[in-house]
């Protein structure tokens, strides 16, 4: 926590206590009229309780000490031991005033008046409370010794969140530990409750830590568990228990030992005092290293409002543009000093860009995690056992994209659960394991992110989809589209082939929303299915980082940007090759036929082509296409600006960018162009 953080929390405390004091006053005044109102009394108590607790935590010791007495009085009222008399209320109001002073200007408050109030309070309450300050129990640290620690968790400990492995780790942290598991109490499989811990442990520990420190490891279960801590005079020999029964140690199991660790404030003190230990010769246990590392890591993480991040990204983007313009302007200059500064700025802008790019990226695991609960609920609703497996949680996507993918993925998971996975009987008949499996994977591939939802259900029903598509007029009757094209039709509006509309899906509403969202994200959907084995829907999304590396090209008089991550290579298109490939759709690139697109034709450029054109070979989703351009102009730091809604029908571009001279250049949508290229390919293949 930085000092400003501390300042912040102090401010918050002040503000909060202000509110609490005001509330306390209100409640007390109400209480005057309704002195037996339980709610009011509870309210007052809680306010005092919170003020005391927070006060102590933020260093307002006098407030805490003072409030404690008032709180004790109200506790007794709460318990019904005394009544909320007018005197008491009066006094409490006075106390409240004092509390306020203790917060606002503690230095100006004198003790005497406080004592007076408390004395009168005591009179009214007729019984002072005792509160011993936490006793400092300092366990002796000293020479290394060998201990034998045998323990076994009580029934239900694991369900209540205890983790014996962490305890063992803590023992390891104390020194050298040899751990042997005691498996004798593990019941046969059909009696085994997987949420229970039947294993006990026998640990030999060589450490400088004291017995109390060792006990602290088991702090929360001391009262309920089996624990024996025995100091050994010599290191254990080979006869050390290996699967043998827990031996009775000389020390009585801890139920009786517990009192030696009381009073309870000592526990807090015990946890508290380790960092204060300066006298121990040997390295002290977990606390100091942990305190140190907690301090070192105090840079941790910071919460930032999303808008501020977006603003920052915008500024960086503009900086990159301005910097690139500056570079252009100084290109002609002879001034070496200016040029070197410009280069420096370019380097800094680049680094800043790299850093901020990382800021917007979020691992998709955050999204996947939410689906566990979803699958669990669906599983219950449908009466099907469904298991969710995820891969690639660390795959990073732009923050805004992750949010928009949530709904489509939910739809796909529901669809797979509802229609893809068979009922338990169905699965049994098909010889499949009872648990249906839905696998969510995410990975990067070139300039795209692939996210897929796969199920091991019955697969898509080709005939039904074909029939439905014909009914809806999406394909001509009798047409034989390829599987993947046919399956894609399930995303058309109103398509649902579900025989019944279940609560979850079947209204044909979900899938076209999926398509629409993916379209808006300028992505694509692929569907694969194997009858009887399952189906897989893959979402292909562009990596729309706000700033990418681009290749600037010229087609006719216009300039365009191609995302560099999609570019495989650039080759020359000699005039002869150009002529040879006129009227054809393929280029021979090192003996491989690559479909190509003349961008001049696609973009209806009026200008005649250059004699030496270039072919930029790009790839997406494993397929390639060559884009014929007039000139390759070079690398360009591309700040992606999205296109207006009015251009949502424009297919070939995924966005736009501002060039160094202030004009706009469109960014080519590589996956779309690759798809177009493939369409040529298919037609060609179909024709031949």
């Amino acid at each position, binding site marked *: 926590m930085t000092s400003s953080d501390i300042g912040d929390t102090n401010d918050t405390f002040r503000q909060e206590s202000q509110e609490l004091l005001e509330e306390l006053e209100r409640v007390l005044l109400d209480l005057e009229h309704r002195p037996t109102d339980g709610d009011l009394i509870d309210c007052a108590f809680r306010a005092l309780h919170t003020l005391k607790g927070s006060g102590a935590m933020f260093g307002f010791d006098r407030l805490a000490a003072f409030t404690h007495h008032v709180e004790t009085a109200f506790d007794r009222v709460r318990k019904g031991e005394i009544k909320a008399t007018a005197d008491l209320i009066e006094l409490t109001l006075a106390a409240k005033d004092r509390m306020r002073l203790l917060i606002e200007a503690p230095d100006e408050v004198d003790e005497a008046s406080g004592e007076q109030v408390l004395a009168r309070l005591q009179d009214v309450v007729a019984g002072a409370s005792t509160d011993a300050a936490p006793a400092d129990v300092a366990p002796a640290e000293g020479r290394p010794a060998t201990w034998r620690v045998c323990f076994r968790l009580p029934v239900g400990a694991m369900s209540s969140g205890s983790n014996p492995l962490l305890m063992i780790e803590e023992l390891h942290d104390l020194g050298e530990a040899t751990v042997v598991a005691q498996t004798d109490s593990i019941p046969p499989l059909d009696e085994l409750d997987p949420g229970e811990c039947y294993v006990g442990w026998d640990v030999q520990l060589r450490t400088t830590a004291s017995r109390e420190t060792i006990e602290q490891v088991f702090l929360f279960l001391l009262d309920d568990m089996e624990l024996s801590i025995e100091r050994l005079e010599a290191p254990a020999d080979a006869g050390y228990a290996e699967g043998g029964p827990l031996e009775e140690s000389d020390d009585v199991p801890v139920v009786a030992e517990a009192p030696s660790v009381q009073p309870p404030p000592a526990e807090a003190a015990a946890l508290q005092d380790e960092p204060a230990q300066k006298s121990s010769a040997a390295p002290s246990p977990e606390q100091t290293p942990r305190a140190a590392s907690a301090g070192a890591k105090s840079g941790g993480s910071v919460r930032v409002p999303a808008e501020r991040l977006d603003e920052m990204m915008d500024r960086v983007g503009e900086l990159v543009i301005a910097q690139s313009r500056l570079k252009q302007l100084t290109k002609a200059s002879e001034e070496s000093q200016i040029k070197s500064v410009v280069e420096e700025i370019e380097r800094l802008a680049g680094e800043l860009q790299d850093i901020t790019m990382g800021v917007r990226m979020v691992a998709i695991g955050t999204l996947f995690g939410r689906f566990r609960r979803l699958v669990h609920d669906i599983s219950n609703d449908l009466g099907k056992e469904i298991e969710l497996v995820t891969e690639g949680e660390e795959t990073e996507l732009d923050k805004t994209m992750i949010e928009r993918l949530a709904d489509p993925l939910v739809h796909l998971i529901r669809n797979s659960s509802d229609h893809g996975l068979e009922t338990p009987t169905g699965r049994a008949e098909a010889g499949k394991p009872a648990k249906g499996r839905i696998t969510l994977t995410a990975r990067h591939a070139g300039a795209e992110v692939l996210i897929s939802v796969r199920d091991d259900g019955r697969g898509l029903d080709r005939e039904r989809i074909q029939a439905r598509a014909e009914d809806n007029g999406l394909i001509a009757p009798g047409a034989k589209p390829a599987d993947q094209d046919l399956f894609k039709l399930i995303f058309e509006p109103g398509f649902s082939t579900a025989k019944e509309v279940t609560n979850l899906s079947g209204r044909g509403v979900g899938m076209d929303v999926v398509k629409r969202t993916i379209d808006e994200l300028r992505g694509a959907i692929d569907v694969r299915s194997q009858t009887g084995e399952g189906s897989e829907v893959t979402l292909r999304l562009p990596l729309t980082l706000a700033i990418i590396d681009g290749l600037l090209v010229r087609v006719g008089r216009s300039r365009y940007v191609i995302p560099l991550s999609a570019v495989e290579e650039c080759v020359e298109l000699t005039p002869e090759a150009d002529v040879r490939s006129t009227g054809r759709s393929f280029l021979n690139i090192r003996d491989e036929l690559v479909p190509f697109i003349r961008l001049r034709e696609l973009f209806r450029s009026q200008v005649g082509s250059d004699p030496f054109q270039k072919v930029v070979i790009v790839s997406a989703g494993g397929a390639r296409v060559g884009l014929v351009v007039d000139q390759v102009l070079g690398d360009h730091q591309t700040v992606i600006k999205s296109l207006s809604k*009015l251009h949502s029908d424009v297919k070939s571009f995924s966005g736009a960018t501002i060039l160094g001279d202030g004009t706009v250049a469109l960014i080519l949508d590589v996956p779309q162009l690759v798809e177009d290229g493939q369409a040529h390919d298919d037609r060609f293949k179909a024709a031949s």
Partner: protein
Amino acid sequence: MQTNMLDEPLEVLTLALQGEIFALEAQQVREILDLVPVTEVPGAQPFVDKIINVRGKVVPVADLRLKFGMEQAEDTVDTRIVVIELDIDRMSAIVGIRADKVYEVTELAPSSLAAVPRVGMRWRPEYIRFIGKRDDDFIVVPDIARILSPNAIDLVAEQASLDRKSASVALAGG
């Protein structure tokens, strides 16, 4: 889908397109730019196939003359791009409207429908947002959102067929 008559004064920016005067709601207007270099967008609809850079934002430029079936004269020194912000299909959009000339911000007064002459109105009532009066003239405030919406029908073709149907185009829900 009635054409709305103004029932209270409306602040507008008046501009000219091919000799005709139109108006845009002043509260939609963000800024007025001189002509700047434009980039063509291959594959976009003809009336909105240009984009410009407005302080780092990529803004499409709409040429309403194409939507109104007007001729497209060359740009002049008076040509301006009026950048407006409005809701199209329930989403906020920024668009530049190309104008031959921009006049001024003025107030349109309410007027009754009956008083509006039928002559000279070339488009469907749906694409008129308001008709108001300034001095003795009636000025149309077109419904830009509807005109530019991807769902808008082709006004020119519509117009041709409307002309064929009847000589007088009724304004009041025709």
